[in-house]
């Protein structure tokens, strides 16, 4: 037993546990804020009102058309530039230039755009008949959305959204490539890199980090699959999510 615990790989897994929490922290903050932003953007993009649809379209295009890596650099440097003039006088500079704040913020803005595109695609494939039925029974706009559009949109978008969340988790690695590491707040790749620089044992440290990513990705798929089962429970077919790498940044 002792020899297993002292195996270098197990030691690495123990060392990398705390860094993994930082990656999870970015994900856990980005998803709940990114989801409503994405739904609003998708509804905006789908809207007939040009004042809503053009800004939403532009936003989604800009954030999907540029690398997340650049977005991190850009928002971090904008925040740094605003620091002396705006954040310092307001007394919030400890928050506004902290990677633990800017990181999730940029991830929210980014996943908002990617997920909006997914939801927008789903909105367009919501069965016409159900919307017509909702109108036929005299539902209000809100009731129509609540009962016909929203559940269908969510169900249609869920597999792609699951992939988006997994790749959002993967892109949390970029946070500390673009922002300074404060105190010992290192994420998986930082720590793996630090271990690598000590003994140059590339395969050991990187595969331990990769294992964390793999396992957490699988857990995300498992959890989202449970939700998907619930979303499709009326369909009476055995459905399960398939991992498809269509969305990444």
């Amino acid at each position, binding site marked *: 037993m002792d020899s297993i615990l002292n195996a270098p790989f197990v030691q690495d897994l123990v060392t990398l546990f705390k860094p993994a929490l930082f990656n999870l922290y970015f994900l856990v903050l980005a998803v709940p804020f990114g989801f409503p932003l994405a739904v609003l953007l998708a509804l905006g993009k789908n809207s007939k009102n040009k004042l809503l649809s053009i800004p939403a379209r532009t936003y989604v295009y*800009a954030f999907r*058309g540029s*690398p*997340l*890596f650049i977005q991190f*650099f850009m928002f971090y*440097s904008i925040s740094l530039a605003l620091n002396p003039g705006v954040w310092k006088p307001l007394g919030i500079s400890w928050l506004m230039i902290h990677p633990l704040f800017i990181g999730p913020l940029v991830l929210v803005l980014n996943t908002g755009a990617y997920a909006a595109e997914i939801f927008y695609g789903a909105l367009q494939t919501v069965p016409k008949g159900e919307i017509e039925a909702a109108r036929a029974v005299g539902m209000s706009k809100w009731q129509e959305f609540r009962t016909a559009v929203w559940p269908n949109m969510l169900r249609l978008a869920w597999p792609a959204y699951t992939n988006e969340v997994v790749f959002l988790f993967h892109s949390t690695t970029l946070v500390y490539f673009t922002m300074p590491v404060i105190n010992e707040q290192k994420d998986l790749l930082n720590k793996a890199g630090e271990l690598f620089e000590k003994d140059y044992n590339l395969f050991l440290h*990187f595969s331990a980090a990769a294992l964390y*990513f793999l396992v957490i990705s699988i857990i995300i798929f498992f959890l989202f699959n449970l939700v998907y089962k619930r979303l499709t429970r009326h369909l009476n077919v055995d459905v399960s999510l398939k991992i498809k790498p269509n969305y*990444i940044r």
Partner: protein
Amino acid sequence: MLEMLPHWLTDWLGPDGMASLAYITNGKHLSWYASVRYTLIAAGFGAILAVFFGLLGAAAKLSKFAPLRWIGDIYTTMVRGIPDVLFLLFFPLAFEQGVEYVMAQWYCKPEELATATGWPLCSNAQWYLSTTEYMVLACFSLGIVYGAFAANVIYGALKAVPKGQLEAAHAFGFPSRDVFWRFQVRQMWVYALPGLSNVWLLLLKATSLLSLLQITDIVSWADRLGAPNYSPLAGLVHGDWRWKYYLVLFVFYILLTWLSEKFFAYLQARAGRGMARAN
């Protein structure tokens, strides 16, 4: 150089405009513009290698030989669970270490090998990589990572080729190898193009990560040029201008994406000539 500009332009710009123009065309800025070549080369060669690895991966996934199928499946599943950044860092380092290991077997003395603790195993076995070598390694890592994405796309496209076409080819007496290469692969591109276009856009955005591999690309230049300068000897005195440079890169990548989309729409229209379309 700027003296060659026509008078109406210099008059229109005025002294301030000319000073700005002189600033953004100074040597450092010209080096920045020139470093776009790394991005484009990595994207171009990375894409070619990605299609190559994608074809290999798809062929492996379709193979009749089970272990080859497993290799294909592991290759394409790998990228779904592990971030691309990890691979981009891992492949060049692994290759470098592999080469240094082989060099150590040749150049190191046996007693050095026996007592070696760190890496490289002895000073003779140190491989210093220049930008060119890092570029080659970066192209290969991009090709390997996005080849897995392309493999999925090509695999789907190969299966989308109508069976009748292949049966007809068989009926004409073409051997299986020819049926695969001359009919299935030849007809696959139309089905693969939309997916490959997505993979290209991903790869294009991943080229922003070149600076992680010690390459002085547009991102590292933007960081250097925008850094605050308080010494008049070093040029224009300015505060932290990094956000301006990153904003330029932000727009640059959006433009590249836009151009790529236009190009792929053209290719799609061209490749789809004579195909039945639903709308």
